């Protein structure tokens, strides 16, 4: 299996504050990697850098062998993203929003219409497709964000706290959607929810203070530390 995402010596300063410290990570094709760490560990920074929303202070990143800094548009063409708490243009409906984003990704015509219907159904917003987003709750926006991430059936999914704001039923449904979708996809998934990460991902990367503390298979981590929770607390300097 080839390396789909390669992060090499990545550092990021925010006005002198070191948010990411020489991070190196490789994600292989069809791997599902959970990015775990406490608040301010550097998880979101890593994902934003990979999507070209931030510029690295040093280091490099490649998606499918394409340099994210040099050729951002080409690098992220096969990536579906869901970052932070998603917000949409309130005057648009989900159908219009997905149509806009789909066209920007090169989709058009009946293929786009069919795919919009599919993803809208997948996230359970069938009745809301033609309602303006200004009327949506946070959870509904979260579902729409997942729909737009899956719209172009990307090879890679980059998800940052994707179930934040969902009710318990929504969280279960979300996990099922991701489990179905992940079969042919590579997933990089930042979360605070350890159980969710354990259910979705087969690999785990634990980051603290911008540094990679652990990166291996979930099974090996559990074997070494007895549970993901223990490993997390141990590796992020919090003993039980």
């Amino acid at each position: 299996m080839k390396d789909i995402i390669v992060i090499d010596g990545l550092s990021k300063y925010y006005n002198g504050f070191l948010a990411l410290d020489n991070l190196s990570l490789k994600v292989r094709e069809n791997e599902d990697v959970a990015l775990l760490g406490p608040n301010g560990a550097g998880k979101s920074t890593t994902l934003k850098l990979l999507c070209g929303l931030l510029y690295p202070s040093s280091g490099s990143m490649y998606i499918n062998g394409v340099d994210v800094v040099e050729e951002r548009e080409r690098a992220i063409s096969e990536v579906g993203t869901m970052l932070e708490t998603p917000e949409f243009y309130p005057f648009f409906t989900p159908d219009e929003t997905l149509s806009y984003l789909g066209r920007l990704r090169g989709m058009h015509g009946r293929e786009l219409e069919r795919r919009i219907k599919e993803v809208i159904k997948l996230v359970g917003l069938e009745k809301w497709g033609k309602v303006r987003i200004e009327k949506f709750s946070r959870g509904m926006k979260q579902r729409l964000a997942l729909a737009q991430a899956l719209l172009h059936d990307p090879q890679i999914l980059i998800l940052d706290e994707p179930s934040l704001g969902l009710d318990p039923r929504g969280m279960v449904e979300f996990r099922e959607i991701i489990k179905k979708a992940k079969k042919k996809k590579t997933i990089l998934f930042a979360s605070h929810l350890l159980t969710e990460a354990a259910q979705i991902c087969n690999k785990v990367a634990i980051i603290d203070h911008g540094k990679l503390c652990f990166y291996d298979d979930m099974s090996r981590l559990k074997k070494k530390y007895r549970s993901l929770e223990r490993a997390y607390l141990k590796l992020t300097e919090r003993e039980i």
Partner: protein
Amino acid sequence: MSEFEKLKIVTKYELLKQFRRKRFYGALALIVLAMVLTIGLYKGLDIPGRMNRLDSPELFATFVSSISTLATICAVFFAGDAIASEFERKTGYILFPNPVKRTTLVVGKYIACAAATVILLIIAYLILAGALLGFYQQVPSGILGSMAIALMLACSVISMTFVFSSVLKGGMGATIAPLLTYLVIFSIISGALSAAGYDPWFMPNRAGNAVTATYGITLGQAFGGGHMGGSMSSSNPDPTLSFFVLLGYTVIFLPISIWLAKRREMI
């Protein structure tokens, strides 16, 4: 897909955004109301008669065309939050991680803002032309030049506003800052230059005054003053020179706003 195809998509949806917003219709209502009021006051109060001037279509067009600058102010309301809101309201997290260049997004937004303003200007000038035909049965040829300068004024104002929108954190600040710059700071500079005996032809507000200069008379000449500043600013700004001055502001500020927007990070 080429960047030009993407530009067409961005422009289409940005324009749709403008049309879905209440502020577009608010601006439209404001323009129509201002035009109707100005025409009504001109005729109802017999302004030329009170000023001992001979009424003419040129004088009427000069008086009413000054309202077209209001449409350019409306451009600030369309452009102020165009870029800033992507960061402030976090919609950029959905828009930016797409295979489309930031330049394409900014240019698409610019075209959409300009198109929305052009619609307002066309409506304003259609009202003016209709009133001219109704009252005088003729439309002075200067109306086309006036409209061209008004369009260029709008383009330059949008470019300047985009610079603020690319830098400032909030859409509100990015709307108020260019308004203050254009209405207050530029007026003070132009006024000071005029008082000192220099013609501030290079200032955008002075160049913008040329919307009333294409009819051969200025408001200052027609009604004895009215423009701030000394003798220089009550004289006619050259329409051709003013057009190119405004074009210059457009050409300079748009690339600056693109450069700033490209450098801005989604923190």
